[in-house]
């Protein structure tokens, strides 16, 4: 083996080892959780409320709360995020170029703000100032803020991937800007935008700090019935079980089970996003 071949071999091995580390960590994590959690996960675990100071029973209120939270966050963040992305990408004219730069920077800064800071923002703005109190509404609005920059950035990317030629073709036919966006850009960008939004949302579903400060409850005897109610949520439930447990030996399996449910929920959302993308890719390819 020549020196050159040896170097190539070493480089390749190092690169492959690095990639394998990622796979190994992911597998270990999932495996550890599944092995420790699968025994406790059952229909009664999913459909029951916690009992006896969370040492028994299930986690239904936490699942319900998290699902409500996701749906509400989606309802707030998706329209605003998609609309903002369309505005930034399609409507900002050349005259606004410095404004474009400022807005991009602002969006990037927002994307980098730690989630606990969003929690404090939510606490100040929604819980106290607007008087929504500790509630599903305050929490989902806070999570919307947190996901918006991600949704906007990813949606803009989806819009930019639509060839300029489609826009030119539509404009040259006398389409208005809105008609161009509506008929020549959005149909090809929407799948990417939706996929990106779901991924951003699945990330938000696991956030603990923002909801901790704005509406998630340690324990509630009743399910929330309005958006002004407090709620239980999976990530906060895990936090509670792992830090406030009266008897760690008994609550640990419940904790694993809760983690397993949360991870399944998040991965499930990712799976849905991937399926949507695959479906639209196939449809677009059918036209190619």
């Amino acid at each position: 083996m020549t020196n050159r071949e040896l170097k190539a071999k070493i480089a390749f091995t190092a690169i492959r080892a690095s990639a394998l580390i990622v796979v190994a960590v992911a597998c270990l994590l999932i495996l550890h959780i599944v092995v420790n959690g699968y025994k406790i996960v059952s229909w009664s675990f999913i459909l029951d409320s916690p009992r006896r100071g969370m040492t028994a029973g299930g986690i239904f209120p936490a699942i319900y709360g998290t699902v409500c939270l996701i749906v509400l966050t989606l309802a707030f963040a998706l329209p605003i995020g998609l609309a903002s992305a369309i505005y930034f990408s399609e409507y900002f004219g050349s005259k606004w170029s410095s404004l474009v730069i400022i807005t991009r920077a602002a969006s990037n800064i927002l994307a980098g703000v730690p989630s606990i800071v969003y929690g404090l923002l939510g606490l100040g703005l929604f819980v106290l100032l607007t008087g929504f109190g500790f509630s599903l509404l305050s929490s989902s609005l806070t999570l919307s803020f947190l996901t918006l920059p991600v949704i906007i950035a990813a949606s803009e990317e989806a819009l930019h991937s639509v060839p300029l030629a489609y826009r030119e073709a539509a404009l040259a036919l006398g389409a208005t800007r809105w008609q161009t966006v509506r008929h020549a850009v959005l149909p090809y960008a929407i799948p990417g935008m939706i996929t990106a939004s779901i991924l951003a949302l699945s990330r938000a579903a696991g956030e603990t700090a923002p909801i901790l400060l704005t509406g998630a409850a340690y324990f509630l005897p009743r399910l929330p019935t309005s958006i002004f109610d407090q709620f239980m949520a999976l990530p906060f439930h895990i936090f509670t079980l792992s830090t406030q447990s009266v008897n760690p030996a008994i609550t640990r399996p419940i904790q694993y089970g809760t983690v397993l449910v949360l991870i399944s929920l998040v991965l499930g959302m990712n799976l849905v996003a991937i399926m949507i993308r695959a479906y639209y890719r196939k449809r677009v390819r059918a036209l190619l």
Partner: protein
Amino acid sequence: MSSRLKEGKENLVERTKIQVKDLSVWFGSTQVLRGVNLDIKENRVTAIMGPSGCGKSTLIRTLNRMNDIIANCRTDGAVLLNGRNILDSTIDVVELRRKVGMVFQKPNPFPKSIYDNVAFGPKIHGMARGRELDELVERSLRDAALWDEVKDRLKMSALSLSGGQQQRLCIARALAVEPEVILMDEPCSALDPAATAKIESLMVSLKKNYTVVVVTHNMQQAARVSDFTAFLYLGEVIEYNDTKVVFNNPSNRLTEDFITGRFG
């Protein structure tokens, strides 16, 4: 102006469709067009030729205000369409582009069916629907010499067509909104010779009903299809005249060098 009037009777009956007056265009601080003057005649094919980067695409894209979508583009001078300055800020750009259609360098059909591509314009303008729309689509495809090749597969994707067919589809799509002027920005540069020949004969037949302006870096093409030829160099019109005159008896040394292939 007076010298051109002397050239023959034919010019006297010709109506000016578009009059470009002292047009200058800047992209940022770079001046791309320098005081361009050009009278484009109705129902004639006018070719704008010149080497790469001479500003010919910029010139043609000014005629339907497509440069509006380019950042930092600034325009000075006037472009009169039917006597009205289309560079005026009060002009309805949407209405202008409906009157002045455009075909691009690379065929750019939407990833929709053949039918939907042609119907796109009429639909957004609410021009026709149902049976009427079908007829409009057929007429446009016939005018673009594509109907016979696609009449049995109108519902198929436009992207299944060959490059030359796609370009004729784009022409049909432009015709469907019933424009007065068709701008073609190097429409054959991505096509093979056979497809190019079809587009060229199409240009000649289109002038019966439309005013055609074609940008080309290919001087043989300009010679074959156009009635008038403008030679553009470094943002200036070096020569503009009857195509025969430009090619057989150019008055400018630069034009002569270009058409004899000494540069370009």
